[in-house]
């Protein structure tokens, strides 16, 4: 017999809420300014793109607001590929923020 919708909801409620997270990595100046190399971040419903994530992180204020300001030459990689601000971010993704590269 098919389970009623209300029963199905009840079943789901027993399972611990699984938060949809992304891994965020920071390199070079950004790592130092934020005092962290990485974090596990619960993706808010409102954040759909890497550009949106950058804007959301700015709301933390302080160095987050200044270092990730639109005037700063911050680069973004999504799952280890360079990404444009419009690139869509999904749970499980790895997003990295860093300054222009200076190797060689």
């Amino acid at each position, binding site marked *: 017999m098919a389970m009623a919708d209300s029963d199905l909801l009840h079943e789901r409620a027993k399972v611990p809420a699984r938060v949809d997270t992304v891994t965020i*990595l920071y*390199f*070079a*100046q950004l790592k130092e300014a934020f005092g962290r190399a990485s974090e596990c971040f619960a993706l808010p419903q409102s954040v759909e793109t890497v550009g949106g994530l950058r804007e959301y992180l700015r709301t933390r204020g302080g160095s987050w607001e200044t270092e990730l300001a639109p005037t700063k*030459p911050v680069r973004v*990689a999504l799952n*280890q*590929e*360079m990404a444009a601000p419009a690139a869509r971010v999904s749970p499980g993704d790895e997003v*990295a923020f*860093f*300054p*222009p*590269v*200076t*190797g*060689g």
Partner: protein
Amino acid sequence: MVRIQSEDFDAGAEIAILRRNNPAVGAISSFIGLVRDVNSGERVSELTLEHYPGMTEKALDEIVDEAKARWDIIEVLVIHRVGVLRPTDQIVLVVVAGAHRGEAFAACEFVMDYLKTKAPFWKKEQTPAGSRWVESRSSDDAAAERWTR
């Protein structure tokens, strides 16, 4: 072939390995980047190189693949060091083996130009005034840009 390592490298030994048992190789060009003791008018006592494990290897692999697609070359080797380095230390080695010099020279320059603008590495310098992150140069962007024309 791409390697990222903290240890130093021996360019002669690496070249010997590349040409060994490969009679098709008629030309090898190579580039070595070194730590200088001065940058932007300041003495540099130490250089720390940071990278993005995973992405850096992928980016270098893509650059090597792109070079092999553009030129008729046989093998490319890139070794880039990370960690703390001092003036006169070697930073990077690029070796291109091909049949003829023209393609080997061009591919070697292309790999370095792309590495400097696309591979995730960052340099931090220790100077008498303290430490500072090296800023990217527009001349490096211009050097990479000319390969797209």
